[in-house]
């Protein structure tokens, strides 16, 4: 059976530290756009940590919510792309083929999660910062959309490695950069078609929610809601 990659994000563990944000940038050759362009809301963060305040001082709460491409099963971005640049891969990922993209930006409008980013200009790395570029990931040119791929280069590398060694992939063997870096291990990545994978089991937690589930996009990212302390009941 084909893999069906999914992710579980435990909001009870997430500390909002942004390790995932920087890991993603480093892994996927996401260019910084600089102060002026960032001021025009054009910074690219394939994963971001959303922060929401609740209440007023002194009864304030803050919650963090990392948002990346939800790799929807029914992805609004895919249907609207006229050139099949956004399409569904055999393993259930919402692929983005940069070469096919002509830059209608329709996918970004259709995406309810706002996880698609556009190259308003050609990316620039001040020399020798270009030496940090990951050779496994293509650099996007001006005029194309880009987005989280679940680090498809890591998925492919893992699959090829397993195939070369004539074995099945082990659960947890493939980890996107964000998952790899996350200090509190709030993110778990795995095959949702494997009922025994950690991601599958966590995705059935009583705390499971899907982001904007009501829109019917059927995301493959599951959020485990922040828990509350039950200790006073035990005490």
């Amino acid at each position, binding site marked *: 059976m084909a893999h069906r990659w999914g992710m579980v994000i435990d909001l009870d563990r997430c500390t909002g530290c942004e390790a995932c944000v920087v890991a993603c940038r480093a892994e996927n050759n996401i260019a910084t756009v600089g102060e002026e*362009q960032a001021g*025009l*809301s*054009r*910074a690219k963060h394939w994963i*971001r940590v*959303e*922060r*929401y305040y609740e209440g007023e001082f002194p009864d304030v709460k803050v919650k963090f*919510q990392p*948002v990346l491409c939800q790799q929807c099963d029914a992805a*609004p971005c895919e*249907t*609207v*792309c*006229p*050139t*099949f640049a956004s399409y569904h891969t055999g393993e259930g990922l919402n692929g983005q083929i940069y070469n*096919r*993209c*002509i*830059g*209608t*930006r*329709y996918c*970004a*409008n*259709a995406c*309810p*999660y*706002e996880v698609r*980013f*556009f*190259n*308003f*200009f*050609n990316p620039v790395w001040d020399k020798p910062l270009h030496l940090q570029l990951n050779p496994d990931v293509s650099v996007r040119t*001006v*005029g*194309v*959309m880009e987005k989280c791929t679940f680090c498809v280069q890591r998925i492919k590398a893992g699959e090829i490695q397993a195939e070369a060694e004539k074995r099945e992939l082990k659960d947890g063997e493939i980890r996107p950069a964000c998952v790899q870096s996350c200090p509190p291990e709030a993110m778990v990545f795995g095959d949702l078609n494997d009922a025994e994978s950690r991601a599958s089991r966590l995705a059935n937690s009583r705390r499971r929610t899907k*982001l*904007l589930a009501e*829109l019917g*996009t059927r995301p493959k990212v599951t959020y485990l809601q922040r828990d509350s302390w039950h200790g006073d009941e035990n005490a």
Partner: protein
Amino acid sequence: MATKTPEQINDDLLRPLSGISGRYALSAALLAGVAVAAFCAFFYQAYTGLGVSGLRWPVFWGFYITNFVFWIGLSHAGTLISAILRLSNATWRRPVTRCAEVITVFALSIGAMFPIIHLGRPWLAFWLFPYPSERRIWPNIHSPLLWDFFAINTYLIASVTFLLLPIIPDMALVRDRAAGLRKKIYRALALGWTGTPKQWHRLETAMHVMAIVVIPVAVSVHSIVSWDFAMAPVPMWHSTIFAPYFVCGAIFSGIAALLLAMALLRKFLHLEEYLLPIHFENLGKLLLVMSVLWFYFIFAERLTTWYGNSVGEMPVFWATQHGSYAPLFWTMMFCNFLIPVPILAIRKLRSITGTAIASFTIVIGMWLERFLIIVPSLSHKYLTYSWGTYRPTWVEITITAGTFSGLALLYMIFSKVVPIISIWELKVGLRQVPHSARIIVEPKEVGAD
């Protein structure tokens, strides 16, 4: 009171085709200058990247798509109205149809440019076309943009045909009165029209068939334009009301544009004897109906949203009602309803000037309406963290201005080349209508000349 003879009509209506006045040349140069600036702005954008526009995350569509919808909407001025009037055999239509159909063709051509202008990689726009390529990739028919491609092409071909077919006899007319190079050109344009009964009959049959075909096409075009939005799960876009709402808005803005064009033609081409108060009166009534209908639609849309009270939609709703977009929203309400309805409803005010003023505010209001449909929704999607804003840059403003002056320029050039009123149809009308409604020279207006 004297009835115009066919020869007088020929003289009157062919007069604008000869000679170029200084005023004409100056305004044409001005308009051309703005259009050229727009072209330069576009090439600058294509060369450096879409970043020179004000588009940003998460408002990825702004002025360009606003213009796209606006111009496609405006294009419903002509073909659709003309077809309806033809089918309903409204006799007063005859001086109006051609100037309406011209708006369609030019507005549609301009509107159809915007999906290309707004592309991140405009040089690859042809990837939208269904053609067999070595890449073995066909366009995705699920995408409303592809529906746009088919719908706009069909509509454009139909509109151009609809405009050009009745022009052929008039070209023959010009051919027979011209000399030299002009004669050669018009001879080519007339396609060898001689005016045999067979030709006349086929032409009229064809126009009848076309009128039947073009109405559903026009309705489908603006429905599909609305589906560009309604197909996406974006707050206040994802609505079944959008298709009729857009079609209504399109006809609304189209009639306004037509009235505005007629008022200008009447003044500048001295067509006071052909474009009569009755035309403005009748179209003004139609505009009044559309204004009320438009209000009905926006009221229905707003009421449903407000009552539905959906978490996703209310931020957009309030942003337009009294948030950051409220000034634009209420300007739109004034321009589209509060100003034009009294003007058009009170008979005294429904004069040529009155309808022209109402039309002018409506054109502005409908542009704002398109903007307010697109931008507030995109800037207030579901996750509040991703809320954003939008501010156009000089590039977008220049290109927008360029399309307005482009349309005006094309219209000016067209009216220099082709009689802006269909001469043969007018003549037919003269024979058909009862004497009392014939085009007559009213002494008052003659005296003004």
